[in-house]
């Protein structure tokens, strides 16, 4: 029976898109999983896969047509030997095509965080329909929940437990039963633990990391921070060094955009938007909520957003789109008094900046010994997409911004 292939929604917010290219012609045989077309949205170009097999009987929306609404029939799939209807019946069961990984195209400007998110969600999560709905209503990401049902299925009780988790709970409280045998305590891995393990292993084994470190003097930035905070009326804001570093990294990525990229086998994606993922440690592991367009936002906005995201991250109440995606990451361990460390890239991003503690160190100015507050920042980069010189250049740009911090407020 003839079935309609519908314009897919490539992201939760997509309402329409451009049919960029047909990769199959009328009369071509298609199997489930074949890429049949490319769709462009304002954010990305995505491949459309067939979810059923048959013959591409008729193309209803030609290449280059813009503003095709989601769920509009774009083609008709027929069985072999079947007559091809002239138009969509509108009544035949429709098969929505599925979106594959984002594909790069020279014309594809800025794949957004959302477009890059399928990787994050590719870990299959078993969840009951009721638990799924309750988690959505409460804004709890399923990945943060520990399923206690059959085969680790997430059930209503798991959402209720997750949703009530007090943000202040400092100690990890494993929800799953813990088996104690002799000196070993066995704690079943949560879904989040598994995702972290899989993604970081993937990163360390498949992404050739290289590291560049630089010492950055913080005194000017700290002075500016004090002045700015002094102007805050009735605690209307209180900037942290981290807030200022998010903005500085955003500006550096704008200045040296070669690091705001993503490597794929065939192409390198260059992102227009600067969406910064900030690593937040939570009892179950860590999560990376995103400050979008960090280069364009004011320090005050970044500060408010970062506080809100971190708070909700610890309460397990982030929405998927708030932590999936991002174009570059920051991991800040300044509060732990560490001198320096190197972070693992958060795939599919190409870079992550590891920020250590600011501390008073001896520095040499001219031929004089002086004291300055210095912080070591280490950049980890995907060498497939970025070469060493560019990494160094970017770090220098960052140092310039931090050491001359007025650009942060101008």
């Amino acid at each position: 029976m003839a079935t309609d292939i519908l314009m897919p929604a490539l992201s939760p917010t997509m309402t329409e898109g451009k049919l960029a290219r047909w990769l199959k012609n009328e009369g071509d045989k298609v199997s489930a999983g074949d890429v049949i077309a490319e769709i462009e949205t304002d954010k990305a170009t995505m491949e459309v896969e067939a979810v059923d097999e048959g013959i591409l009987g008729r193309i209803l929306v030609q290449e280059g047509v813009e503003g095709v609404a989601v769920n509009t029939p774009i083609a008709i799939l027929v069985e072999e030997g079947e007559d091809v209807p002239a138009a969509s019946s509108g009544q035949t069961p429709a098969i929505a095509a599925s979106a594959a990984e984002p594909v790069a195209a020279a014309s594809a400007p800025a794949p957004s965080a959302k477009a890059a998110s399928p990787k994050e969600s590719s870990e299959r999560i078993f969840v009951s329909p009721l638990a799924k709905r309750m988690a959505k209503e409460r804004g709890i990401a399923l990945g943060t929940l520990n399923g206690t049902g059959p085969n680790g299925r997430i059930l209503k009780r798991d959402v209720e437990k997750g949703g009530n988790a007090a943000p202040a709970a400092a100690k990890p409280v494993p929800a799953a039963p813990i088996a104690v045998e002799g000196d070993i305590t066995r704690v079943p891995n949560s879904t989040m633990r598994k995702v972290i393990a899989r993604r970081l292993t993937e990163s360390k084994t498949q992404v050739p990391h290289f590291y560049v470190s630089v010492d950055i003097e913080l005194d000017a930035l700290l002075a500016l921070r004090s002045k700015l905070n002094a102007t805050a009326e009735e605690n209307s804001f209180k900037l942290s060094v981290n807030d200022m570093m998010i903005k500085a990294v955003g500006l550096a990525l704008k200045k040296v955009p070669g690091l705001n990229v993503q490597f794929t086998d065939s192409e390198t994606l260059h992102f227009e938007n600067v969406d910064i993922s900030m690593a937040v440690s939570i009892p179950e592991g860590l999560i990376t909520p995103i400050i979008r367009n960090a280069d364009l936002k004011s320090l005050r906005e970044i500060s408010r957003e970062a506080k809100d995201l971190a708070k909700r991250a610890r309460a397990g109440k982030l929405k998927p789109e708030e932590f999936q995606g991002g174009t570059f990451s920051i991991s800040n361990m300044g509060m732990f008094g560490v001198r320096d460390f190197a972070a693992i890239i958060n795939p599919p991003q190409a870079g992550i900046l590891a920020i250590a503690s600011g501390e008073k160190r001896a520095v040499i100015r001219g031929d004089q010994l002086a004291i300055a507050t210095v912080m070591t920042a280490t950049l980890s980069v995907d060498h497939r997409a970025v070469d060493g010189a560019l990494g160094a250049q970017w770090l220098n740009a960052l140092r310039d911004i931090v050491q001359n911090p007025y650009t942060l407020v101008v």
Partner: protein
Amino acid sequence: MSDTFDLIVVGGGPGGYVAALRASQLGMSVAIVESTHFGGVCLNWGCIPTKALLRSSEIHHLLHDLNTFGFSAENISFDLPKIVARSRGIARRMGGGIAHLLKKAKVTTFDGRAKLAGRAGEAHKISITKDGAEVAIIKSPNVILATGARGRQLPGLETDGKLIWGAREAMTPTELPKRLLVIGSGAIGIEFASFYRNMGSEVTIAEVADRILIAEDPEISAAARKAFEKQGMKIITGAKVGPLQKGENEVSTTIESSSGTVDLTVDRVICAVGIVGNVEDLGLEGTKVQVDRTHIITDGFCRTAEPGIYAIGDVAGAPWLAHKASHEGILCVEKIAGRSPQPLHALNIPGCTYSRPQIASVGLSEEKAIASGHKVRVGRFPFMANGKAVAMGETEGMVKTVFDATTGELLGAHMIGAEVTEMIQGYVIARTSELTEAELIETVFPHPTISETMHEATLAAFDGPLHI
């Protein structure tokens, strides 16, 4: 033969024998001790033989309604001993089936009564006696108590086997009582009332609570009462039954209720006023096992307070249902085997009453759902508007669904009418799988079936039903 097993099961009813079979499947060496007959009350004196009787009474009812279906027949009669014999034969046959299953599973069976007799190291010792003499002592680190329950005897209402019947006497009548008083309107009382009424007895039901079938949603209780009264039963709720005056072959009593005092003389009385757990002579005194009002206290995995001793089924408390016992048997054994079973969720255990009309339910009643803080959406659909029910001549019935208005969770489903005991599993699957109204609405129900009322009752709670 070794006297040490991986597991000893005490009691061969639907809890015990299923636990033994599952343990054998998981590779354990298993012994089961049964004093009377495999299959327990369920198979021998409960679920199965009563279903056989009720089937006969349904046929009797249909034979008296032949005209509706275009038949005529004269001199319709029945042979009660034959009806009872069929019921007993079925019970025997099923019991034999269990003995065969246990043998096939290489479960060692012991004929006798089991009693905990202290420990031998890590293991619990079980002493088995037959006719007062010890016949064996066996040992195992794991003992499942599945001794079941028996009808509760209330002072003044004790069964005597002749005029005052318990379930056993009620399912082996030699002649049909012309007038019958049933005390208690739980599933057991109602099923006997329905059987005898359909066979032609004058039946009075006395229930102490303010409605019959107290475990059901009040709306279903009311519908059931209406249906039974239409069939000619007398139902007295809020009833206080006075002393039973036994005559030669009849019983007189006075029943007080808010609607006045009734003097009643009947041929037989069936007493179905709940059950008590069989916790006596099990040797529990020497253990940490806790007993509360004749029931052993257990946790979600059927563990008692004494390590290595488990209890399942009726002896471990309500609901007193064979399928609850079997399910507990399985999860208890899986826990012992180190697997990760899910604890039993009481609200996902369906309850069925095989009267005419049948009654079935799962989850919370509307009033309990509201009382526990849910904002509810309720759907109802009558059998009257269902094609198959009309074609079958079974228009008496309804389905009621209770959903959480916010999450769409199916909180409860309540059904009365033909075949509802066969249909309730659909809602049980929905509850166990945590489906919401969306999945139920998406489901294609076959037409024409009475099960379409389940779909409509869901639609009724949300978008509105289509066929009414």
